[in-house]
């Protein structure tokens, strides 16, 4: 392996590392400089747009415009003829097992509930518990590690976990080795549609992979929020004789609530748009389809943009309730100050 190129190109790396922030800070300082030249009454009208402007341009160009194009496409067929709701009708027909319904059920029920619940609960528990031990950095790094593993590599890991060998043979999968140790038959974790073909077990097996991979995210952010709680508040509560659990319920949790809402919202959205894990591990087989995977397959395998667009819009509509909840939160904070 030849690493000499790394040294050779360090000047360019430095140039980019320094150049990019210089451009960005230069923008805001320069723009503020110009705003100050404006008459007093115009400044408050112009200033916010200076600050949100770059973000608006980025988001409009890379996300908003493609989304609008998708919305339009969802009402047209693949040849550009307007077809009204036909694409939606074909995706939403055949309840409960036809069209996109399996994917809708898995994304909006199984993934949303279990993924959000587990990532949030484990993340919060870890943030609070790890905060109290000396070796915090070590255990946090270990929990964070799966985040740094790509989805392909983590599918290899979980292959080792879920591997299935028939009863009687030596189990090579970790979980089945445990299960057979307790004299239970090995389980085909990713195929088994327990119970009663409701496909809860195999979907939860996939959720587990994602929870394992993503709990580091909520742990880190919640931990940052926890560190932001003023120490004197906790001291005061302790002086009042409050137990640790009471302190958590009455002081820590309320103060962390805004961050819990942010993390929870993000997790809901990530749950609804989950793609990687089902894609690399089952590709939707045995009723493990999810919305983003269905969209992907319609887009790239079926080359059916119209249907893919309709599925994407269903996915986007599914996050609207979370947004409304956020708006309320947002206005509540506003009202308090």
């Amino acid at each position: 392996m030849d690493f000499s190129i790394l040294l050779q190109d360090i000047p360019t790396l430095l140039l980019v590392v320094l150049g990019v922030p210089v451009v960005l800070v230069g923008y805001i300082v320069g723009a503020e400089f110009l705003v100050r030249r404006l008459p007093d009454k115009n400044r408050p009208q112009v200033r916010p747009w200076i600050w949100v402007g770059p973000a608006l341009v980025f988001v409009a160009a890379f996300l908003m415009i493609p989304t609008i194009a998708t919305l339009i496409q969802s009402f047209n067929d693949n040849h550009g003829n307007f077809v009204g709701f036909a694409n939606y009708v074909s995706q939403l027909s055949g309840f409960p097992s036809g069209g996109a319904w399996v994917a809708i059920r898995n994304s909006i029920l199984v993934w949303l509930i279990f993924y959000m619940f587990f990532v949030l609960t484990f993340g919060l528990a870890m943030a609070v518990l790890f905060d109290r031990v000396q070796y915090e950095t070590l255990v946090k790094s270990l929990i964070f590690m799966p985040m740094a593993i790509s989805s392909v590599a983590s599918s290899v890991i979980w292959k080792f976990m879920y591997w299935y060998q028939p009863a009687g043979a030596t189990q090579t999968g970790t979980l089945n080795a445990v299960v057979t140790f307790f004299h239970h038959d090995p389980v085909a974790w990713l195929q088994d549609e327990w119970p009663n073909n409701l496909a809860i077990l195999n979907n939860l097996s996939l959720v587990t992979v994602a929870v394992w991979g993503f709990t580091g995210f909520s742990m880190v952010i919640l931990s940052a929020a926890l560190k932001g709680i003023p120490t004197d508040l906790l001291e005061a509560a302790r002086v009042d004789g409050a137990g640790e659990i009471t302190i958590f319920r009455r002081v820590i949790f309320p103060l962390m609530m805004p961050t819990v809402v942010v993390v929870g919202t993000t997790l809901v959205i990530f749950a609804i748009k989950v793609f990687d894990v089902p894609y690399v591990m089952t590709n939707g087989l045995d009723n493990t389809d999810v919305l983003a995977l269905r969209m992907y397959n319609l887009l790239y395998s079926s080359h059916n943009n119209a249907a893919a667009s309709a599925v994407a819009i269903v996915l986007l509509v599914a996050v609207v309730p979370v947004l409304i909840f956020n708006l309320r939160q947002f206005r509540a904070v506003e009202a308090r100050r």
Partner: protein
Amino acid sequence: MSVAIATRAESTAARWSVRWIVQRIQRSLLHVAVLGLTLVWIVPTLGLLVSSFRPTASILTTGWWTALSPPYQFTLQNFQDMLAQSNMGTAIFNSFMVSIPSTVIPVTVAAFAAYAFAWMKFPARDWIFLAFVGLLAVPLQLTFVPVLSFFVAHGILPDNLISIGLPPWVGLWLAHSGYGLPFSTYLLANFFRNLPSDLFESAEIDGAGPLTVFFRIVLPLSVPALASLVIFQFLWVWNDLLVALIYVGGAPEVAPLTVNLADLTNSLGQGYQLLTAAAFFSMIIPLVVFLSLQRYFVRGILAGSVKG
């Protein structure tokens, strides 16, 4: 800092008093919970680590835990094969060139926007903010064709960029920034919004402008949020494969490390045991970033500033 509670809890009771014993038990339970949780969490990673030192034939026929007892059959073959790829140096360099600007740009731009969303008043502010959050749900695959068409039409492709003296990754930086902004803005705006408002009022009385407030008050107080954001944005870009393949392609001169590592397995999926070694290799840099930003996760940043 984080040990403050621990030391304090132990010092409140006299040795061997009932309270002291209860506290002792609570401490032990805490350690059991922390270590148990961590242990469960690292089992898969441990399996991967052990497997990365095992020969292919054994991976297929026996569980990874059997390698932990004699006869030991460890090998460095997987790591050697992975590192034998000819252009790893270039790939690592490219990964830095992709990841650093793709982290700096969205975090900075998001901080500007979040400040405005949190502390300025302008028409349709809440709705624009909600749109930002909602766009977090857009599956990126939807954006590939429109964005790439735009890049093609305006020459934001590696060959063209090089010929006009810009790095070949500019398009990728912009795309990653666009994709990273909804989350970045959302997280930071929430954090900024919950800063104590008296800080802003007193700054205004002192005659400080928005630039001063932003750089002197908001940013220093938000270091933990900024640090966690940097960790995640860096991580997502560092581990990205698909977006890079779409906007810059997989040619060795421009492709990031993830492309090299994905190419370890052939078109039939053979050689996936090399991915075990690759996973640990590609984890090093994100872990370094994580650990080096750890010192910003300390208690009391806010408390100190409020008083000062």
